[in-house]
């Protein structure tokens, strides 16, 4: 009958609305479900996974030595021209000329964190760091030289 159908419709509608309202009331009253992370306050506890691709860095050991041979594999692997390897020739103690890096210039503003340079590197000289707060006031600060001043290549890395 028309009237029965009409009343059923109204009650069905109200019921479906109440089901939703019950769910939202549950969340309104259960504050332990809140998932907000208060970012700048939780810096100490915020730990990114080891594989997180933040920026490319070149690890140096205690003697200020790195593992980069200046082979430009990373430069070739990079799709965006983020890395520029500037090489120089060192004179080894034996008197031979040896290719080494002068500067490894890294343009963070061009980098897409694709990790291709890191897997291309034959001597594991560059790795991805877990930093992510990259904003600076001046664009020039994003262009970085990865090898520290006065650093030299580690012994035994070819």
């Amino acid at each position: 009958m028309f009237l029965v159908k009409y009343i059923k419709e109204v009650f069905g509608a109200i019921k479906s609305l109440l089901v939703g309202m019950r769910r939202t009331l549950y969340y309104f009253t259960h504050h332990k479900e809140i998932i907000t992370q208060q970012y700048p306050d939780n810096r100490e506890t915020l730990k990114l996974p080891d594989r997180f691709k933040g920026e490319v860095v070149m690890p140096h050991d205690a003697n200020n030595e790195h593992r980069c041979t200046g082979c430009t594999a990373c430069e070739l692997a990079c799709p965006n021209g983020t890395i520029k390897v500037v090489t120089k020739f060192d004179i080894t103690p034996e008197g031979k000329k040896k290719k080494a890096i002068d500067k490894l210039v890294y343009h963070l503003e061009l980098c897409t964190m694709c990790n291709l340079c890191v897997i291309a590197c034959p001597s594991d000289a560059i790795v991805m760091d877990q930093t992510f707060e990259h904003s600076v006031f001046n664009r020039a600060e994003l262009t970085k030289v990865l090898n520290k001043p006065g650093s030299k290549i580690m012994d035994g890395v070819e």
Partner: protein
Amino acid sequence: MWSFSKIANLIHEWLNQTFNPTLATIIEMVIVGIAVIGLFAVLGLVLVIMERKVSAWIQIRLGPNRVGPKGMLQSLADTLKLLVKEAMTPSGSDKFLFNLAPYIAMMVAMLLMAPIAFASNFQMWDLNIGVLYVSAVSSISVISILIAGWASNNKYSLMGAMRSGAQIVSYELSAGLSILAVVVLTGSLNINDIIQSQANGWWIFKGHIPAIIAFIVFITAVTAETNRAPFDLAEAESELTAGFHTEYSGMKFALFFLAEYVNVFIVCAIGATLFLGGWMPFHVGNWQGFNHVMDYIPGSVWFFGKTFFLIFVIMWFRWTFPRLRIDQLLNLEWKYLLPISMFNILLVTAMAILGWHF
């Protein structure tokens, strides 16, 4: 017992002793005006922070928590921001009407404050057709929205305004009819009489199922009338960007914003007065002891408690439901709410004549 009415009487008497009656009346008017504007500002701040907290908790967020203790001063900071923001007038707009619209919205909200009884004998204007006055004045608010939409010279605004016009005009009916249900039961349009008639129980309990139906219809209709989600078609963020106030910024926008919240407060106050007894404490029939205990809680606490509960319900609606479409909105009114409330009026009338209510 501490009450607002005593303070009000005290001031009244003191003014009449000190000044001549005309001057005293004028001073009283000024005091009332300042009080209303103050109440407005406070209500705006409280309701905005309440809405933000309610929405945050429903949405498993924390909500504002930086400004002031527990973020309670957040809306003050927002107001400050809106005050110093440039209030732009678009070049193609009708400048006079564009600037007029927010003030009309405010004025309507202020006018509606007049007959509301905040506590026993604490009322700005105890007029004998209080309920009629409320439903008459509240329909003026559509004019401000229409003016805002038209004067903005923006297609989104115009569409928002037109939607709002259709919406408010039609929902006025069922809101009026559900108010009428209580008027039929009490036999008075005076707000004080209506509250007094609930001394032995609120109408939502005394009036059996018809009163509950009237209450549900009322809550739905006023949600639509105040343009709140799920009936916020005049704003409809995802369709019309911001509807009728797309072009408004700074303090002019803030006035619309404030008017919306004050309107919500007023309709909830009316709802609380009609169905939940206003400032009348919770009384049950002839349990004298129980009623006496309840009387110890001041009337203003009862009034604000009930009103804020209804405001919470309306906010709860907003953060749960998706928005209706314009034709569905009108369908809901003309095919469901209006027939139901008309039938309901019939039931209530029969009930009132036969005396079936408690």
